[in-house]
């Protein structure tokens, strides 16, 4: 940088230079932050936005059946649509050139009604041969399902460009052909139950972690540091092992003829082996084990900063040691408790592998279904909608929680 001119500067010039320097400094600071911001944008904001978009986006049927959708745009959904709609469907299906587009649209309709995929392909194969003047009758003769109002209702529901189909589906609800929202039959209603179960399991895991983690953290914070360091390694050890390995290890330990049952039988506590795996008990044990460090560490960091003096003062003033602990020590550790429970609860909500391998069929959590619809059936709309529901639920709980936690808990700002 060239040396400053030697002539004295006026006030205005000085201000200008100061501003320039400040601007440069701000720019420099931003340049340092830029990679992080970009990282956040690419890895957090973008996927979450895409998830929201996916959950309402519905472009596939529009692309393939524009005439049909125009023909039924004013249809009331109370009786079968007019012949015009049938003719439009035949024209649309006859004009499809891109089989990939047709496949997408057929998949989308199949999400709504079982078997719609083959119905579309079957109809498309015969579309050229059908006389459009009696299109509705011919369609009905080709396949009974075209005589069903709900078949046409499904086409209308998929009109796009946006849809509430997935979000309603994620809450076990559906619109009928007439546009009224109702709950799906109990043989298909699964997501509200699974959501409640996800929250329930997470709540129990959080309580178990607190119950087990609090004494451990207390011990770590109060014993001499050389011993504490060794114990701390034991707490952190699970972090160094793959989640999958730990989960599989629990399968070995907890199985019917495994070491845990063996030991219990050997000491004579039980006669018959306990069922510890492929049920809720196994899920609680394994998730609690995995998440325990997330509880111990925040508690430890808070407890470490508390000296023994306040407790001593309380006892010297006549409090029973237990009362002193409960009324003086515990309140001071509340920030750690809030941070720990929040960390554990939110991590537990997203658990997937552990319940899949250790739980039974009625222990699956919501992420299992998100993975299922993402990977197996490519129903990304429903996967996105389930993700949105989970995110919303977590956000609401977080808000309630931080309100309850008051000054002790983490705040938005």
């Amino acid at each position: 940088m060239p040396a400053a001119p030697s002539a004295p500067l006026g006030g205005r010039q000085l201000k200008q230079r100061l501003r320039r320097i400040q601007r440069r400094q701000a720019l420099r600071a931003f340049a340092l932050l830029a990679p992080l911001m970009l990282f956040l944008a690419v890895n957090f904001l973008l996927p979450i936005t895409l998830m929201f978009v996916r959950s309402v986006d519905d472009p596939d049927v529009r692309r393939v059946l524009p005439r049909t959708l125009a023909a039924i745009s004013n249809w009331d959904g109370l009786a079968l649509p007019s012949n015009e709609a049938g003719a439009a469907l035949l024209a649309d299906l006859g004009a499809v050139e891109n089989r990939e587009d047709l496949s997408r649209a057929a998949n989308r309709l199949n999400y709504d009604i079982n078997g719609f995929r083959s119905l579309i392909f079957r109809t498309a194969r015969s579309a050229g041969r059908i006389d459009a003047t009696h299109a509705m009758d011919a369609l009905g003769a080709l396949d009974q399902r075209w005589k069903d109002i709900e078949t046409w209702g499904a086409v209308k529901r998929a009109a796009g460009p946006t849809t509430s189909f997935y979000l309603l589906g994620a809450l076990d609800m559906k619109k009928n052909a007439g546009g009224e929202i109702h709950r799906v039959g109990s043989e298909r209603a699964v997501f509200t139950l699974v959501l409640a179960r996800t929250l329930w399991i997470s709540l129990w895991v959080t309580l178990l972690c607190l119950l087990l983690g609090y004494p451990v953290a207390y011990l770590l914070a109060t014993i001499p540091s050389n011993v504490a360091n060794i114990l701390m390694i034991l707490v952190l050890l699970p972090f160094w092992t793959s989640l999958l390995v730990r989960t599989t290890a629990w399968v070995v330990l907890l199985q019917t003829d495994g070491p845990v049952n063996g030991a219990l039988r050997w000491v004579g506590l039980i006669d018959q082996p306990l069922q510890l795996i492929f049920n809720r008990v196994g899920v609680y044990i394994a998730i609690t084990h995995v998440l325990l460090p997330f509880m111990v560490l925040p508690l430890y960091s808070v407890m470490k900063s508390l000296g023994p003096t306040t407790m001593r003062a309380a006892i010297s003033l006549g409090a029973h040691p237990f009362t002193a602990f409960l009324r003086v020590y515990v309140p001071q550790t509340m920030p750690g408790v809030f941070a720990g429970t929040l960390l554990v609860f939110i991590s537990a909500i997203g658990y997937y592998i552990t319940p899949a391998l250790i739980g039974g069929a009625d222990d699956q959590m919501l992420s299992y279904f998100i993975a299922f619809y993402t990977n197996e059936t490519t129903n990304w709309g429903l996967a996105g909608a389930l993700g949105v529901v989970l995110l919303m639920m977590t956000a609401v709980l977080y808000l309630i929680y931080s309100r309850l936690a008051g000054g002790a808990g983490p705040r938005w700002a």
Partner: protein
Amino acid sequence: MRISNLTGISAACLAVVFGATFSAQARDLTVSAWGGSSQAAQKKVYYEPFAAKTGTKVLEDSWSGGIGILRTKVQGGNANWDVVQVEADEAILGCDEGLFEKMDWKALGGKDAFVKGAATDCAVGSVVWTTGLVYDGAKFADGPKSWADFWDVKKFPGKRTMRKGPKYTLESALMADGVAPADVYKTLRTPAGIDRAFKKLDELKPNIVWWTAGSQPPQLLASGEVVMADAYFSRALAANKADGRKFKVVWPGSVYAIDFWVILKGTPNKEAAAKLVTFMTRPEQQKGFPPLAFQGITSVEGAKQVDAAVQPSIPTYPANMQVALPLDVEFWVDNNDQLNQRFNAWASK
């Protein structure tokens, strides 16, 4: 000076962030199959001889299915697999969606060189596999012989393991309820038939342990956690060979299906991938596969040349095929979504 340094660092960080996210580099020919004893056998009879013969390096990966994964790979423009072993429903869906390259049937020797159903426009059959009743011969001297026995907890006390999902499970339930194998899908295509299958499953529900990965059933049988399994035969028979187990398989009422090789669209290794697929479907290569993997092969000529001692343990053996039920792929492409939802709702109660 300092600023330009910072810019440099930021640019480098940017490159790292974007590089990790979007980069598509030149890479070796990669094949992804289903792991376990089957892929170990493929490595021996296909990948290694191919690499030795052509000098093309073959990298391996494994997966456990899901058309979503293939769609992400192809449409994301960052497909790091070239040749993939897929299940029949993925072969249909993926071909319809244009995720796969078309097969060159001239190079493959024509569609007639393969067993029925193993030749499609964008996929060629790789293996014929079977799922069905497996039990530990060391536990039962006179073991179960049918799905009705699988449901009979009085005669054969103990837990059973089934796949956590409706596929194969509903078929088994209907056969246990007395539906003839030939009528299973006809029955499942009616709402009453589906209700009937779930009702039959209700009976056994307290005694079922569900499996998710194909490697679980042999482990569950070996540890004594369950006494019977509805599971892949090849894994059980491979465990007999590798670990000296005495697992027995029941061919009547088993369900068989074909897996396929596909080439992902837009791969930079298209030519080498096609060569590998051709190599892997030649009779002289395929015939070495069943003795290692206990799965059937798709080459008509190759099937005749398989070691006679191994023939009775593979799905394509005529006596086994006659009593088995071919998986109705079209039914599952249509119904997978909703039957899964119903299965999960049922399992949750």
